[in-house]
């Protein structure tokens, strides 16, 4: 069964982003929810589905529902890292298609920057992790560095090519008033930013910010009654591969290979039909590997694909047009912001960074250490 046009996205919003000390994970999510419902033209009382993710509470799915005063008839707390929200979008579509709910809200918030002592992930060294923990690989950056080392050795990819992606992403951020880092960046700045875990340098890594987001997903019947043009889910696929990097079968191929193929097949579109792409950029290497796994270029060609400004505002391949996790915001789990930006682009709401005549977008979320992926294709026609 297909999820094509099973639901539409009717409203999106961020909370305040960046450094937000006068907030909690609950207030940020409430802020985003109120703004996204207003964007959709719906009321809180319309919400009957709630999809949340996070590691900030004992039972986040219960705590946020209680705080907001929502008693959902469909609840999903799928937690597969930063990609959780793309999984949620597919799950919301399935639930709506099955008649389990009509207005589902996907929510996220984090105060990891301002209140890190309270709400950060607890690193565990037990169970499967006991076989990695003795060796001191910093998580998650060290695992992504391992994948980069493998890609460099296997295909001759270079730090310069990864740096170019960070530069192009910053150029998009310069066009986004909400982006956290907007000052110009050069390839040399990235290369000289200092090694974290070779071959990744500091500016190959995403930001560490506060922030929240909300996405309102509705049935086709409701979508047609709202003022703003609906953004349709045309295809979705999801895949889970492993939890730890030592268990990843091939460090150069991510679970996007499986989930992307399913999303394309469901949507009935091909790569060249797409107007823009939002790919989870926890690290520069994440984008390169995901692009290859999704089939935008052949295995090993990712370095060339992302270099020399190809993905920037003047390039031929508009990618991460909000400035991404690298320069716009990254509050722990970034995936919800991929959806928000794609919807705004497809509605033509992006002002200086607007991609002309955008009608079809792909978003691809990656979680854990290249562990999980959900890819969605969205369109306005």
């Amino acid at each position, binding site marked *: 069964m297909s999820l094509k046009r099973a639901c539409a996205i009717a409203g999106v919003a961020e909370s305040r982003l960046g450094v937000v000390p006068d907030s909690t994970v609950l207030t940020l999510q409430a802020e985003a929810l109120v703004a996204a419902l207003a964007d959709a033209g719906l009321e809180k009382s319309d919400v009957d589905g709630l999809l949340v993710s996070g590691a900030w509470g004992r039972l986040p799915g219960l705590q946020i529902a209680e705080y907001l005063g929502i008693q959902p008839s469909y609840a999903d707390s799928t937690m597969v890292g930063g990609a959780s929200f793309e999984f949620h979008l597919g799950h919301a579509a399935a639930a709506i298609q099955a008649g389990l709910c009509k207005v589902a809200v996907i929510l996220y918030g984090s105060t990891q920057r301002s209140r890190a002592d309270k709400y950060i992930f607890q*690193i565990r*060294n*037990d*169970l*499967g992790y*006991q*076989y*990695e*923990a*003795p*060796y*001191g*690989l*910093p*998580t998650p*950056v*060290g695992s992504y*560095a*391992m*994948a*980069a*080392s*493998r890609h460099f*050795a296997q295909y001759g990819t270079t730090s310069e090519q990864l740096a170019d992606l960070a530069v192009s992403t910053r150029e998009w951020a310069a066009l986004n008033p909400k982006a956290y880092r907007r000052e110009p960046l050069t390839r040399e700045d990235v290369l000289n930013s*200092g*090694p*974290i*875990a*070779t*071959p*990744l340098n500091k500016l190959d890594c995403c930001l560490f910010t506060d922030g929240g987001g909300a996405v309102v997903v509705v049935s086709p019947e409701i979508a047609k009654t709202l003022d703003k043009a609906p953004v349709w889910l045309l295809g979705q696929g999801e895949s889970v591969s492993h939890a*730890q*990097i*030592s*268990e990843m079968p091939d*460090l150069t191929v991510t679970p996007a290979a499986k989930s992307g193929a399913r999303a394309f097949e469901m949507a009935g579109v091909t790569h060249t039909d797409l107007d823009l792409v939002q790919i989870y950029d926890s690290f520069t290497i994440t984008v390169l590997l995901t692009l290859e796994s999704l089939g935008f270029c052949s295995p090993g060609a990712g370095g060339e694909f992302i270099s020399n400004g190809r993905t920037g505002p003047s390039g031929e391949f508009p990618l991460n047009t909000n400035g991404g996790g690298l320069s716009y915001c990254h509050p722990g789990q970034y995936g919800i912001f991929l959806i928000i930006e794609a919807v705004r682009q497809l509605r033509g709401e992006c002002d200086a960074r607007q991609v002309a005549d955008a009608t079809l977008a792909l978003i691809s979320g990656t979680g854990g250490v290249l562990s999980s992926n959900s890819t969605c294709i969205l369109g306005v026609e």
Partner: protein
Amino acid sequence: MSDDTLPDPDSEPYWDGAAAGELRYRHCASCETVIFYPRSLCTHCGAPNPDWAVSKGQGTVYAVSVVHRAPPAFKGQSPYAVLLVDLDEGFRMMSRIIDVEPDSVSIGDRVRVIFQDGPDGRPTPYFTPA
């Protein structure tokens, strides 16, 4: 780093092996799958309770990263090279190379296991050039 939940029922023979100078893994008698880290079932066919086996401890570096920003528990040790090693028996594990400059390690290098006390004092497998 110290974790008083370890070893657990899955890992006790593994850590006992390390204390005896053996790198142990599991092997499925039904489908011949090599299983690492040790689990209570075959990750391929699902058969319960795979056999224990002892690796010769020889392998090839599959991936390597030199850590410059160490996690808090490892502060003061950087830079050090963390590896993924493909053992000749057909399993992959994380470890660290010791007794050489961290930057001198390359993917494809041959390495062999040695045992030293890990951060929690337990004998732990590390690697050195073969």
